């Protein structure tokens, strides 16, 4: 995060940390319950979705940060999001083609869970690149 030491940067850091703590607690808690309780499918689904609360809080914090940024920082953030989205979309498509052709095997649930971390990594790299253009 390249935000300057200002109030909305500190607010984002605070909200991000809280959301990540909630996410980690819910991930471990919900999957422990899923593994140790005999639950119907709808119960497992509800528990599996619980960590999304932390992710949603992170998304909200990110959105509030974006709205509070000044015009240049908004431009940088949006360029980073656009580039990361394009890289993820156009990078995953050929991988999907190869998986479909049997070049390698990847379980679908693994792919789905790694979309957000992959996007976050790409976003960080693209934001670094976008920031340097204006430095």
């Amino acid at each position, binding site marked *: 995060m390249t935000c300057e030491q200002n109030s909305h940067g500190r607010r984002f850091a605070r909200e991000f940390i809280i959301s990540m703590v909630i996410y980690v607690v819910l991930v471990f808690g919900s999957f422990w319950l899923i593994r140790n309780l005999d639950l119907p499918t709808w119960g497992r689904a509800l528990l599996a979705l619980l960590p999304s609360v932390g992710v949603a809080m992170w998304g909200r914090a990110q959105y509030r940060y974006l709205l509070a*940024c*000044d015009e240049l920082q908004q431009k940088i953030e949006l360029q980073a999001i656009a580039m990361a989205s394009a890289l993820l979309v156009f990078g995953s498509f050929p991988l999907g083609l190869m998986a479909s052709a049997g070049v390698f095997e990847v379980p679908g649930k693994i792919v789905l869970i790694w979309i957000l971390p992959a996007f976050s990594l790409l976003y960080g790299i693209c934001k670094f690149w976008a920031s340097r253009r204006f430095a």
Partner: protein
Amino acid sequence: MNSHVRELREKAGWSQAALAERLGVSRQTVNAIETGKYDPSLPLAFRLARLFEQSIESIFIFEEQS
């Protein structure tokens, strides 16, 4: 787009951070405008013009691209 923002700021005796605070933007934005790496939005250009009591055309140097 190049500009006279740096000269005007230094003439006023302000740091980049001080100018940024007056304009309601980050120091990074002021630096990017001064180095010509970022063209401000129209509202920001008007705020600059009002702050320095000059016209936008006298602050920003428009160069025709050949």
